[in-house]
């Protein structure tokens, strides 16, 4: 069965520190990959997505992710976090087409001053 693993449950960083959140997926074929963010009390929002092409994907708010097919990974990065990045981050995958998302368990990011 398809699955998505996120390695870190809770990450605490100081402002301006660099961020990398790990995500690995287990899928049999071609896969679409996503990172979503959920700010406290708000909807799930799409940060970025990978369908094909350049494996380095840039999203909103300075986030980027790199698809490494050989490692089945899609790690999220940001060079310098801000206090406002405090949120829960979810990696998700799906088969090609109009199919449901399979989410990881999420990583809670706390950014401190």
């Amino acid at each position: 069965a398809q699955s998505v693993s996120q390695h870190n449950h809770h990450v605490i960083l100081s402002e301006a520190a660099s961020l990398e959140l790990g995500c690995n997926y287990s899928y049999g074929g071609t896969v679409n990959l996503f990172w979503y963010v959920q700010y406290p009390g708000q909807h799930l929002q799409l940060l970025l997505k990978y369908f094909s092409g350049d494996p380095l994907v840039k999203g909103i708010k300075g986030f980027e992710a790199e698809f490494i097919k050989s490692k089945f990974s899609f790690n999220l990065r940001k060079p310098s976090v801000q206090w406002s990045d405090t949120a829960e981050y979810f990696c998700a995958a799906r088969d090609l087409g109009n199919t449901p998302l399979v989410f990881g368990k999420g990583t809670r990011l706390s950014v401190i001053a």
Partner: protein
Amino acid sequence: EAEVAQSPRYKITEKSQAVAFWCDPISGHATLYWYRQILGQGPELLVQFQDESVVDDSQLPKDRFSAERLKGVDSTLKIQPAELGDSAMYLCASSSGSPPYEQYFGPGTRLTVT
């Protein structure tokens, strides 16, 4: 900007009671999903609709959960009877049904069963 609407936002119910959640997708979106998010976990699919038809309900506990989308627009998810383990956030998402099939999520209904 169009959004997915859900109501109620919060619901507290006693176990063995019936509870229902409503979702209104973005206008024109043919595909509707219900996900459940247990505290500390990622969302998990309960049911997927394409227009008024169920595409995937393999993860829906059918002994107590039911979902309908009678006119292919808004949808209702029902639990009867509710159990303590049903306490979770219930998320609705919709997509247009055309590439790139991006899903837009509603604010969710937080259910607490006491």
